[in-house]
């Protein structure tokens, strides 16, 4: 069937030459997938809480300030480092997934290390400044 043969060739052009379905099995492809799921779930549950705490601005200034001051304690300050770490990984790895889908899956391993590098750079910019804000007040 010439039609199917044509479909296969166009698929082979846009994705890697490996058989379908191996990108997420083992090594970088799998661990990025695992981390994407774990960070995604963590961010989702924080989002639920964060919308509820922000909704307190509609209750009273006192109620909002009482809850937000708990976000300014040292322990929560460290929690915010973990939250930002999860968000930054999920964001950069999400862009990597888009590039795998729409550009070229051949570079997925290299792109995983780019994600790690960008994550380190972003965290270096955020963590010291944030910890100074948390521990100097």
């Amino acid at each position, binding site marked *: 069937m010439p039609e199917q043969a044509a479909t296969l060739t166009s698929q082979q052009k846009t994705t890697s030459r490996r058989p379908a379905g191996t990108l997420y099995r083992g090594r970088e492809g799998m661990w990025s997938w695992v981390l994407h799921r774990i960070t995604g*779930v963590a961010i989702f549950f924080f*989002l639920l809480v964060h*919308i509820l705490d922000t*909704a307190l601005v509609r209750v009273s*200034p006192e109620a909002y300030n009482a809850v937000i001051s708990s976000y300014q304690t040292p322990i929560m*300050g460290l929690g915010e480092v973990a939250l930002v770490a999860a968000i930054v990984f999920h964001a950069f790895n999400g862009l990597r997934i888009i590039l795998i889908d729409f550009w070229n899956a051949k570079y997925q391993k290299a792109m995983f290390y780019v994600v790690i590098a960008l994550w380190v750079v972003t965290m270096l910019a955020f963590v010291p400044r944030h910890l100074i804000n*948390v521990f100097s007040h």
Partner: protein
Amino acid sequence: MTTTIEAPRSPYARSPKKRGVNWEKWGWIYMRVSGVVLVVLIFGHLFVNLMVGEGVSALNFAFVAGKLTTPFWMVWDVLMLWLALIHGGNGMRTLVNDYATQRLTRGILKSAILAAVVILIVLGTLVVFTFDPCPAGSPADLLPSFCSAI
């Protein structure tokens, strides 16, 4: 007795009988489109709230009131609310489909996700658009400075 052996690794063919909207495809596209927008919205949100000035230590009612009376930040926050909740809800739906083996469990978990997403979108949108930055009877030192001019 003759046995018909199918050709190995025959290319995946979509059944021609299926009609209507391919919701899974649009969900897949939504995750990518909203993802790109959310990277910008959430990185901007984190920068303004945690990096500028004294970061998390400066957050209080007056700070939020200043943002939620600015149309730019109202649009920013409402967009973030809708895009992030639907993105997160759809992601959780994917996990439930992957890990919940019982049909009933899947139904209960996905209903809970849908309820949480709908309730929080309605709540969050109402909060942004009905917000009063200068509630009567509140101590002036908790309110944004522009309240004293009224």
